[in-house]
């Protein structure tokens, strides 16, 4: 990437992250206020504040810090400084164990809630997908060994229904993470319901990212209506005057039955004029289009630079909400399992994404449409929730761990031990940060 593009990408990543951190901190803030703890300061970003607002000296100070890295909520607390007599009942450390736990948990909880909300919108708008029907099978792969046949429709994976191809594949991945065999229920071409067992070899349990290549099933590309979703700038299609929403009717006198037929025709005619009839707003229009020449491994082919409309599967409000809950839960568990497997050495560290790759995904998802950007935000939000719940001192999960121990032992952990553990926690986090940067830079050589 050129330097400015990298800065641009990182800027947007930090912006998105800052919003998610703000929501996390708002969770803490809201719970603290509701449960009667006084909040001194709510800061987004660290360092010197560039903007601040405080209604009166008694109320919370809101501030935006210079460095867009994280944020914090500062509550009245005797461990962190002098507390005046009248503020004592509102000090965090004077609260019951349950109240303190709730305030700490509210941060990650807000992130999960946001993820659910975002997924809900995504599912209601509709995910673009195709039916989970097996198209081609690559020889010598896991799917062939499991006996999959062309035309099999995947109904469920491990008893979880899968309406789209993407969901089916992600379910297979989800199960392949800890089971050596994944039962896939299919409806065959002869209308028989069968269970096909995918056997996952040991080496794939360690490197799940290889599963994609080894699985070896491809979706059956469905027949698509020849209606344009979008026309790329400076493309042959734009030059010819095509627009989004156009239905392609006739090419050089031959009727266009489906999108694939048109694609084949274009590929076979690079740099040749094609007489085209399209339907726009109910009227027929005659156009001439000259596909651009493109070099590919298969030789020179034609290309017009337009994309076809793909069917969307929007859900009604309630089923979308259920799906959103389910998706958030599943992704969180998956993240957690992945972290666990990396720690015990069952999965390669290649699965870690550092800031650079996460930022790259951010830009790609933002470029490929509004819903994929929302989906991306949801993933980062729930990851933030999961990671913050890890039992590492300093993180919310670390505090919760202290509270659990306090509940078990009947008295708080001595402050000296807490401080030592906090220092260890900081070390662990710093190592993780350096490590993920290192992996990222390794993965994307400049």
């Amino acid at each position, binding site marked *: 990437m050129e330097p400015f593009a990298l800065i641009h990408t990182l800027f947007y990543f930090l912006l998105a992250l800052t919003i998610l951190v703000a929501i996390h901190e708002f969770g803490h803030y809201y719970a603290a206020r509701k449960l009667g703890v006084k909040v001194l300061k709510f800061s987004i970003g660290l360092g010197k504040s560039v903007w601040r607002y405080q209604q009166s000296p008694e109320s919370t100070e809101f501030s935006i810090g210079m460095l867009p890295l994280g944020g914090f909520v500062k509550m009245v607390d005797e461990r962190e400084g002098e507390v005046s007599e009248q503020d004592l009942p509102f000090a965090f450390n004077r609260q019951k164990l349950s109240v303190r736990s709730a305030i700490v948990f509210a941060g990650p909880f807000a992130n999960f809630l946001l993820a659910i909300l975002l997924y809900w919108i995504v599912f209601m708008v509709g995910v673009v997908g195709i039916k989970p029907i097996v198209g081609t099978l690559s020889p010598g792969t896991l799917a062939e060994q499991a006996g999959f046949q062309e035309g099999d429709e995947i109904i469920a994976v491990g008893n979880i229904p899968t309406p789209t191809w993407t969901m089916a594949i992600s379910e297979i991945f989800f199960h392949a993470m800890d089971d050596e065999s994944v039962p896939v229920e299919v409806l065959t071409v002869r209308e028989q319901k069968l269970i096909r067992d995918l056997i996952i070899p040991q080496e794939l349990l360690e490197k799940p990212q290889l599963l994609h290549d080894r699985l070896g099933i491809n979706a059956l590309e469905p027949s698509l209506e020849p209606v344009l979703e979008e*026309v790329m*700038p400076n493309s042959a299609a734009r030059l010819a005057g095509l627009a989004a929403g156009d239905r392609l009717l006739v090419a050089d006198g031959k009727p266009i039955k489906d999108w694939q037929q048109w694609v084949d025709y274009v590929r076979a005619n690079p740099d040749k004029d094609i007489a085209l009839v399209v339907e726009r707003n109910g009227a027929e229009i005659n156009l001439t289009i000259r596909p651009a020449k493109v070099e590919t491994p298969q030789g020179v082919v034609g290309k017009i630079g337009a994309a076809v409309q793909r069917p969307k599967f929007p859900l009604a409000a309630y089923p979308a909400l259920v799906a959103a809950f389910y998706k958030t839960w599943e992704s969180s568990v998956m993240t957690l399992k992945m972290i666990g497997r990396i720690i015990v050495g069952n999965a390669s560290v290649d699965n870690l994404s550092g800031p650079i790759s996460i930022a790259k995904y951010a830009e790609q998802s*933002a*470029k490929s449409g509004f819903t994929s950007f929302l989906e991306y935000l949801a993933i980062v939000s729930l990851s933030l929730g999961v990671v913050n719940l890890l039992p590492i001192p300093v993180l919310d999960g670390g505090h919760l761990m202290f509270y659990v121990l306090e509940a078990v032992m009947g008295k708080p952990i001595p402050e000296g031990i807490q401080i030592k553990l906090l220092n260890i926690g900081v070390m662990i986090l710093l190592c993780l940060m350096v490590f993920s940067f290192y992996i990222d830079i390794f993965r994307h050589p400049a």
Partner: protein
Amino acid sequence: MLKNRVWTALILAPLVIAAILFLPDRWFALVWGLAIAICAWEWSNLAGLTTIPARGGFVLACVGVMTSYQQWAGDLEEWLAWPVVVWWFLISIVLRKYPAKLLELNYPLAVKILVGLFVLVTSWILMVWTQHNLGSKQLLYLFLLVWIADIGAYFAGKRWGITPLSPEISPGKTVEGLYGAMGAIVLFALAVAGVLYANEAGTFTRFDFIQLIDFVMLSLVTVVVSVVGDLFESMAKRIRGVKDSGVILPGHGGMLDRLDSLIAAVSVYYAGSKLLGIFFQ
């Protein structure tokens, strides 16, 4: 006062818009050059030149540099916009941090003359570049940004204004007014982006979330710099001890009083549009 101001604006605005949209490149460069020459005349007074020959000499120097650029420089490198951006960036920091010190300092005449020459001539070049390289619609957007920010700041300041933005330099401006201007600009930028997307104009052929935020942020930064330009001129007037830079426009004072925002804003607007790849056509 306000009545005069509104009337002058209502008569001038259509003329300016027509000039932006319909004048061919060379004629636009000439008209904008005339406006800058009037600004130079006013700046010469702010700089402390008092005799007609001295003031005329400064105007001639500006016009001379502009004419030689038009005649001989040809296509200059695009990066020449950046020193101007850096200049306004530094000015905004200094104005924010040390307003009182800036007013106390004693500036040699040569510094004031050179600053005027640099600011006026570069703004003329960048404006001509914007019109020529980005097109008249994108140039019109810049003018509308500055005007709408002005109007937004006026009303928001009147309604909510409490906290002075820069009490030493310009007591009339408030922080709330600036927020109002920025709010108005966000709405305006979103509306314009909507129209551009609907017409698939320039780089706005398909909806792109990041591009949209880029566009809104560029508009906001442009407006902030336009306010800096305004404050910069106010500072010059305060140092000289005058209220208006001239008397050419009824209700508005001088030409420089009207164009100070644009003169500063055009630099970031041009450089930012190029850097972010924002084009209207």
